[in-house]
């Protein structure tokens, strides 16, 4: 039940950011689903492992693989899927909190928040690299499946 609520809210948030950043209409739904599946992955891993790095890393791998697959399927640059689906994971809120404590002159809090931002951003970026390595392994299989489908379509027509 709770997972369902998380899924719906993150779907809304991803599609919303897609609207703000003006992504092509045909990629709104794939981006939304990528973003919300990644958020659910984050949530599930967070229940097992209460750190910053592992949940974000796993979510980034999910985005990387699903994003690349939907980029091939819907013929869009992969960045268009990445940008909106990252919005619920990204350390924007923590970066703001850090800079706010900086404005208020609270040094120790500033350091904690900025380090958290750095950790999350690096975990996400490394997750993407790993996901791309995995994707290049499964890419030939995906293309084979796609071309078989196309053959079937053309023969049935």
């Amino acid at each position: 039940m709770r997972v369902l609520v998380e899924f719906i809210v993150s779907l809304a948030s991803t599609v919303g950011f897609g609207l703000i950043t003006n992504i092509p209409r045909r990629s709104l739904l794939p981006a939304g689903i990528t973003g919300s599946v990644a958020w659910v992955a984050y949530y599930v891993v967070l229940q097992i492992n209460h750190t910053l790095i592992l949940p974000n890393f796993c979510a980034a791998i999910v985005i990387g693989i699903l994003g690349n697959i939907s980029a091939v399927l819907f013929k869009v640059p992969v960045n268009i899927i990445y940008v909106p689906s990252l919005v619920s994971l990204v350390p924007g809120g923590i970066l703001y909190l850090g800079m706010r404590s900086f404005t208020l002159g609270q040094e120790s809090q500033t350091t904690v928040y900025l380090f958290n931002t750095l950790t999350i951003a690096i975990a996400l970026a490394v997750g993407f690299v790993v996901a791309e390595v995995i994707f290049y392994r499964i890419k030939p299989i995906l293309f084979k499946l796609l071309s078989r489908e196309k053959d079937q379509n053309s023969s049935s027509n």
Partner: protein
Amino acid sequence: MTEGITEDDLISLCGKVGKILLTSGAETSRVESTVEYIGKAAHYDIVCHATITAIFVGTHNQSRTHLVKVRLGDWNLQKVDEINTVSRKFVAGEITVAELKAAIEKIDRKVIDFNWPLKILGAGFVSVAPMLLFKATWVDLGYAFFVGIFGYLAAVFSGAHVKTPYVSAGFGGFVVGLLAAALQLSGLATSAGNIIVSALMPLVPGVAITNSFREIIDRNTISGVVRAVDAVIIAGSIGAGVVIGTSLIQILFSQIGG
């Protein structure tokens, strides 16, 4: 393939392609590879180097270089997609150079956007952060939906009227801080802090900072560092705006209440 375009024309066309891509939010590696693909398809040996503030385009066998200056722009990923589609068609040989040129001119001039009600709805959805589900109260998240819309509108509106960089982000933060503090002090909301963090989601440069680390890992160190510093300063101006907004409301309420 090569008929109808000189080397100079092709270079300036490539410069334009790069500029549109970079201002609309593509990564530098994509800009470079797209431009070089177009050059290869037109049978010229184009080299392209893109940083976040400038693009250099030239050919291998001559010494002239075309330099295009770029300012960081807003996200407009639709343009990235359209350029990508056009350049793919060109590389596949489906359209000629003249058609490519016309298409790029058209994309450059066209204002592609979702309509305002949709964008406002989008900003509202982003403002309900999944990060705060079951941590903030549902009422607070409901307020965040509307506060986020006002913050986003304030940032967009001031961005269109004030040319000084970072003012729009600061003004968006100011409006969010003002409204959230007012909601808490008037007793309607439980926690202004939760509303602020949630409602700032459309403004905060979280995606930019993640992309900057992706660029650094990709060895585009210059653009990565520029993006990261830009993100930190945007966050700083939002933070300053929020602090000013909340303190203003606190002073106001203490005057009325006292």
